[in-house]
């Protein structure tokens, strides 16, 4: 379940990011602090984008920063971050990015059910309204629980 992977402490609202790298670093830092990923996983995400392009920007204004499980995943989790000012990732179709769903997945099938839920959330525009208006992480968690 998605709600099992998202925790209040993994959510950061209205962060101020200088650029896309900074946005990824700040979005992923709570996962380091919560012992979900090793610090090197953040660099792995950035290296992926530098090498393969901004394919992690999956739909307008939404990025799904992630890397291979071997590159420092400790536990499967999803962090959520919103940016005060959107930043450009270099993805013509879907820039600029305002919402980041930072994914750490241990193996490819374990998180499938959560991803199905996440996919449904991302399609349902209400999640963005909630993220735009939430005053704290708890509001976001409450919405996902519903």
């Amino acid at each position, binding site marked *: 379940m998605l709600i099992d992977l998202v925790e209040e402490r993994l959510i950061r609202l209205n962060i101020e990011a200088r650029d896309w790298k900074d946005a990824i670093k700040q979005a992923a830092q709570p996962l380091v602090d919560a012992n979900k990923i090793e610090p090197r996983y953040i660099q792995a995400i950035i290296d*992926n984008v530098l090498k*393969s*392009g*901004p*394919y*992690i920007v*999956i*739909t*307008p204004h*939404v990025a*799904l920063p*992630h*890397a*291979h*499980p071997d590159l420092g995943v400790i536990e499967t989790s999803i962090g959520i971050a919103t940016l005060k000012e959107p930043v450009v990732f270099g*993805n013509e*179709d*879907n820039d600029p990015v305002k919402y980041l769903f930072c*994914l750490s*997945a241990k193996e*490819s099938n374990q*998180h*499938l059910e959560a*991803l*199905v839920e*996440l*996919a449904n959330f*991302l*399609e349902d525009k209400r999640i963005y309204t909630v993220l735009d208006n939430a005053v704290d992480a708890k509001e976001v968690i409450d919405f996902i629980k519903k």
Partner: protein
Amino acid sequence: MYKALVCCRAGMGSSMLLKIKVDQVIKENTMDIKTEHGNLDSLIGFDGDLVVTMDDLKDELAPKVPYAVGIRNIMDKAEIKVKLNQFLDSKK
């Protein structure tokens, strides 16, 4: 029944979401396609009919596979539907 590989580079996040959406579109429109999921390594020895991937990977994969579909907005079922239909039309 056509066989499709849904893949991205790492095969963990984006392509998994893409497969979820592609499967929904196939089901809703009763298309004669079944999907499997993988990463770029899965292309080695792939004997299916098409590959569905992110748009920026499409050009790289197109020469190596029978048919390549590139999706720009992987949450956009309308886009996925149009592009899968183009594939099916090409088989008629």
